[in-house]
């Protein structure tokens, strides 16, 4: 079936089977491999994307459900020059990246949080990340990076 939606601020129309997940649609039909398949049961969050302003596990969303929605993947998280945005810069600066497999999901989860809560406490950041597993970092530097981003965006306003 034809699935049409807004992907990273641009309209797309893609012919795909109706029984695949949004994650498969992104990875295998749109060649966007930033979202990762870590568990396929919605536990690890490595496949996180933002769908109509909400953080979702794309492995739990059927591809046709994406029709008519607006989706942001890690490939759509960029600064004005097309390079890393402030969140991504902070992930680097604060040492939040190790193996990196969870990081696209973590960055997306951080962006989703700041959409709704521009001034989160560290505890609120931790709660927002509770659906995104990281086995390398112990989360601390990821929390540091998101906290610094929120602070930076507040100062900029």
């Amino acid at each position: 079936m034809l699935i049409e939606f807004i992907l990273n601020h641009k309209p797309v129309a893609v012919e795909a089977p109706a029984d695949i997940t949004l994650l498969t649609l992104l990875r295998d039909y749109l060649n966007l491999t930033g979202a990762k398949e870590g568990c396929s049961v919605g536990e690890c969050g490595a496949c996180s994307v933002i769908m109509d302003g909400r953080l979702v596990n794309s492995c739990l969303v059927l591809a046709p459900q994406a029709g008519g929605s607006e989706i942001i993947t890690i490939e759509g998280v960029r600064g004005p020059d097309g390079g890393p945005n402030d969140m991504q810069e902070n992930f680097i600066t604060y040492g939040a990246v190790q193996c990196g497999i969870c990081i696209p999901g973590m960055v997306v989860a951080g962006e989703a949080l700041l959409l709704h809560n521009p001034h989160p406490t560290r505890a609120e950041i931790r709660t927002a990340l509770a659906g995104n597993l990281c086995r390398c970092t112990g989360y601390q530097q990821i929390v540091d990076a998101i906290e610094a981003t929120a602070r930076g965006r507040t100062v900029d306003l």
Partner: protein
Amino acid sequence: MTDHQYIGKPARRVDALEKVLGTAKYVADRKLPGMLHAHCLRSDAPHAAIKRLDVTPALAVPGVRGVITSDDYFEHGLYGFPVKDKYMLAYQKVRYVGEAIAAVAADTPEAALAGVQAIICELEPLPGLFDPEHSLDPGAPQVGPDRPDDKHPNFLDKLIVRKGDPLAVWEQCPVKLEEHYSVGPQEHAYIEPEGVLAVPTREGGVVVYAPNQSPFVNHGNLALVLDLPHNLVRVIQPPVGGSFGGKDDVIYESSAQAAKLALVTGRPVRMVFSREESLIASYKRDPMHMRIWLGADADGALRACKFDGLMDSGAYASESSFTAWRASIHAMGAYRYAACDVDITAVYTNNGYYGAFRGFGNTEVCSAIEQAIDEMAYKVGMDPLDFRLKNCLRVGDETAHGQTLTESVGLTDCLNTVRRLSDWDRKRAEYATRNPQPAMPGTAGHTVRRGIGVAALYHGTSLGAEGHDYAGATVAVEQNNSVDITSGLTDYGTGSRTVYTLVAAEELGVRPERIHMQRPDTDTAVESGPTVASRSTMLGGNAMRIAAMNLRQTLDYAAADLLGCELHQLIRHGEDYVGPAEEPVSWDKVADHARAMGLALSAQGKWSAPRINWDHHAGRGTPYMAYHFAAQVAEVEVDMGTGNVQVVGFWAAHDPGKVIFPQGAYGQLYGGIAQGLGYALMEQMTFANGYVQETNFESYLIPTSVDVPEIVGTFVEAPFSHGPYGAKNIAEPSMVPTAPAILNAICHATGRRVRDLPANLERVRLGKDLTKGGSAKACKLGLKVG
């Protein structure tokens, strides 16, 4: 103190940008035109004879392009080090649920799965062996290989340490402890499941993209089982999505399976595991049963330690002999004893199989000995931190193995540091008053109690007497005057690529941005032994330092020639060279001049660790050239009604020697503590008659961001003279003392010991397990996921 330009200073991780942008290509993100998808037929029996294996029906399935079995390998694909007991695909027998029997390559993953289901495989069940305590019984089913000697075939190895007669000393001690402890299996739970991409070459060889830790070990295995000359096999490591010791054997097997299928079909072949397949088929941290005797004088001086450990190696040896050795060396903890015996015995069973995992034996034994030490402190009536300070190793002390420590022993500093940072003395006294008596099982109300606990650690650096300890590195100036470096040791998330970049930058006097570290590749890097045992910074760092120093000398000659001066007159100003005339010349000009002089702008470095000796029969010697020391303090809240434990505070002071890449070192520290927290409280893996019960993250729970507290970490840098700039290690030791620190805090809160890990709700609340029957169901379903 030497002032460094890049060592120990804030730095950007060299591979972070592609990872935050989502553009880093992990193996599952890589595809080629015409690429086939591979899937394995795996055993659904814990122990069985393969009576019939007919793959021809699979070849008739539409889309299937190739099927292989053990018959397609040299010597049926037998491999393994130090014990050769496993096959790339099962031969004649299967010994655990999930063992690969055949592999299918097809146009689509669905066709590959259909091919697997079409294979005719008749397994004749054999009696299973699930209790390691009975592995060596005369009538036990044989799981291990036939042996040339008269030892039981299920006996893998026994490792010992011997000092005096500890039981005789123990009998004389006024304060005695004799206690049992156990730890269960732990899953690595890297968020990237296993995968491999193999591409056949025109000359009949194969290029394998494999997220393994040690590409050269994979390379050697592949050449062996594929019966190919080494120059026709190439292994390249793509970004690795976590490993922690876990992506060795299992990836070597996937590599051999995908590579053979690529050779048979002439097409690229990719094999990617589902999470279920990963949890069922891969090796875990070994479970251990431990019995400890400790004896002390009335004043709290430790005198005797006897430690008996039984390690389950599962169906295959994997690294268990080495794990058991490291366990034996560290079993008594970082303390002085008049007499000490350690016996660690490793045996075969049909409970999956066990191999390397961060800490490698020390994580297991430290959980036990650091609880036992705590219990002794209670018995002699001393504060647990004071008790450790009284007995711990210092410079000049002799270890239980007979090694005199001459330098780089930061343990007392670590203990004093966590005491201060955690406000130990106040909290210890305050919580003790608040928790006056042990809670009786079944009677406690819904109150929350606080407790605080400590654990200490030492952890030998690098391989030690496990093997020849060396590494190599290369450095070269490219035509555009960028600097290209390679190492035979790999970065699977640890940060070693950045460490090597900073070392090369420091020695060459160039900006790190000028340096580019290639992906590990057996065609271009220098073989450096396996990337294990937290050895990358020390071994690889020394090799890189030497390589860069060698190249620096060449450039210095060119600079002196260009500036018309002597070598000793050169000074550096940023990247620039300055001579007596005080006019700077750029590094690029110097490099260009070196080329014009006909000098080679590349160099190699090799470094071997100082020779050490271990006498396996006497249980005496010098096991490691140096040790990492640390102390960790955990503060917990225990819900006395539910048994729920929340870690609310955590302090860690570690002595990794000189820290080269601080953000990376802190990342290792925090991440290791999170893994140790999971090991202590929630990571439970149950084998029911050989069938694993936890097959995805909804049942195998690892710590989330709300389970891990804010951690206060700090480094006590006691430099080691043979380490690069004084560096030792950090990756493994960061997790080793975490579980016992948490368990000791639980005891402080509740007044009761939980001596079996993990300290789940019922063990904390009831003091015992609630028996879970378990079945083959989930495990068998997991094997069928496509």
